[in-house]
């Protein structure tokens, strides 16, 4: 092999046969390993299969939870980004405080804080509510920064142009800034949504019966670790891979040169 591991210049395109050969070889190797692991002696697929309904329910809860938090975090993120651009100091500082607090705190700590803190204020807390709230607040802070950066990526000359033709500020955001900012926001936003789905797994600590929690229960019941957690990984992948594909499609739809 004369290929170098790291390059300081654009690499030359690989020949087609090399791509096909490498891909096939890797696929073969991985299949061998997987087959060995999956069908090896002592695998108790039968035992785990009995819990498929519970697993499915857990997965559905993860999906529902993620969708709610996706909407919640987007609303929070956009509002926080707009607040950060406000002329009113209090609003601006509050937004900064929120973003910096959440970004500087581990998600696990935020979950625990909400789970044990909320009952002291509201007398009671539901796992689902705390879960959705924690996810929305956590992702919202990151989304706020993405939206802010996206808005700022639209040049001053565009705002001025919008002002000159007589658009109001609301119209300027709607017709000029957001459509252009979206191009910068979309790729990291898709990544954030994928993170949000993955982060929801941490909610198992408060006993929310989403898919990770369920997989753990199945593991405890059957002592079949790989058989419980490999499907778990797949359960997340079927959600996150379509998101990154969708983001690529959307990205090309919004593409235009400035």
């Amino acid at each position: 092999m004369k290929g170098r591991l790291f390059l300081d210049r654009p690499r030359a395109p690989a020949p087609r046969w090399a791509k096909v050969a490498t891909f096939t070889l890797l696929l073969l190797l991985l299949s061998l390993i997987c087959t060995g692991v999956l069908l090896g002696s002592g695998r108790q697929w039968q035992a785990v299969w009995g819990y498929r309904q519970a697993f499915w329910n857990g997965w559905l809860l993860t999906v529902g939870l993620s969708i709610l938090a996706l909407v919640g975090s987007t609303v929070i993120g956009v509002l926080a980004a707009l607040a950060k651009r406000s002329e009113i100091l209090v609003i601006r500082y509050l937004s900064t405080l929120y973003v910096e607090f959440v970004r500087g705190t581990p998600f696990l700590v935020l979950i625990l804080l909400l789970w044990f803190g909320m009952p002291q204020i509201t007398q009671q807390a539901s796992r689902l509510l705390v879960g959705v709230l924690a996810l929305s607040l956590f992702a919202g802070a990151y989304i706020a920064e993405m939206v802010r950066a996206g808005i700022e990526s639209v040049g001053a000359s565009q705002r001025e142009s919008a002002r000159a033709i007589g658009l109001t500020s609301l119209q300027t955001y709607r017709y000029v800034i957001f459509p252009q900012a979206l191009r910068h926001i979309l790729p990291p936003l898709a990544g954030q949504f994928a993170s949000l789905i993955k982060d929801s797994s941490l909610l198992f600590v408060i006993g929310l019966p989403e898919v990770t929690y369920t997989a753990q229960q199945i593991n405890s019941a059957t002592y079949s670790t790989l058989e419980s957690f490999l499907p778990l990984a797949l359960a997340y992948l079927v959600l996150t891979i379509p998101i990154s594909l969708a983001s690529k499609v959307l990205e090309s739809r919004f593409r235009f040169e400035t």
Partner: protein
Amino acid sequence: MTIDCSGLAKSFGAHHALKDATFRTTFDHTLALIGPSGGGKSTLMRILAGLEFPDAGSVTVNGKPIEYTEEKLAVYRRRIGVVFQSFNLFPHLTARQNLLLPLENVHHFSDAASRADQALERFRLTPHAEKKPSQLSGGQRQRVAIARALAIDPEFLLMDEPTSALDPEMTAEVLDVIADLREAGQPLVLVTHEMGFARKTADVVAFVAEGAVAECRPAEDFFDRPETPGARRFLERILKY
């Protein structure tokens, strides 16, 4: 058209862009603002366009004083058309959508679509109507910007160095359009570096230097017999090459 400015001043931090700009002029078609870079002509134009608040002084256009509050300016800006140096089209919209945006959302014309198509036709842009700015040449972009500013039937048109970001061939293309506007009787105020063009096209020239309007006279007079030493030096330097 009549413009009456008195005692205009505008600072950006420690930089005094305009110190005391006072002039009064009446012209049929075209007023050209010329002068050295950094002399304050763009600031003057931006105040006339209602995009900048003066720190002091007053502006009266066609007998109506401009009130410098954001609400009043928003209304004032709807009556005029502004064309900038460059980058003033919306890159995510097609040429036609760029024209439609103010027609539909600011002016609420019921015949917005036909107005947009007429304006595109007038500037020979119909074949380019569905293109985005990145697919147009610099000259075509500037023609779209002019079409957008004119589609709303503005009282007058303000242009801030409309050709300075263009190469010579495209400059000629845009200057032709401006000359046509003059023929069509469209009143316009323009900041320009094209002295030959200013001399040929403008009725009146205002020479802006060091934050003040040093001279404001008919174009022929000004170019043949500049009165102030500053204007003489400026013209000599430019005509040297």
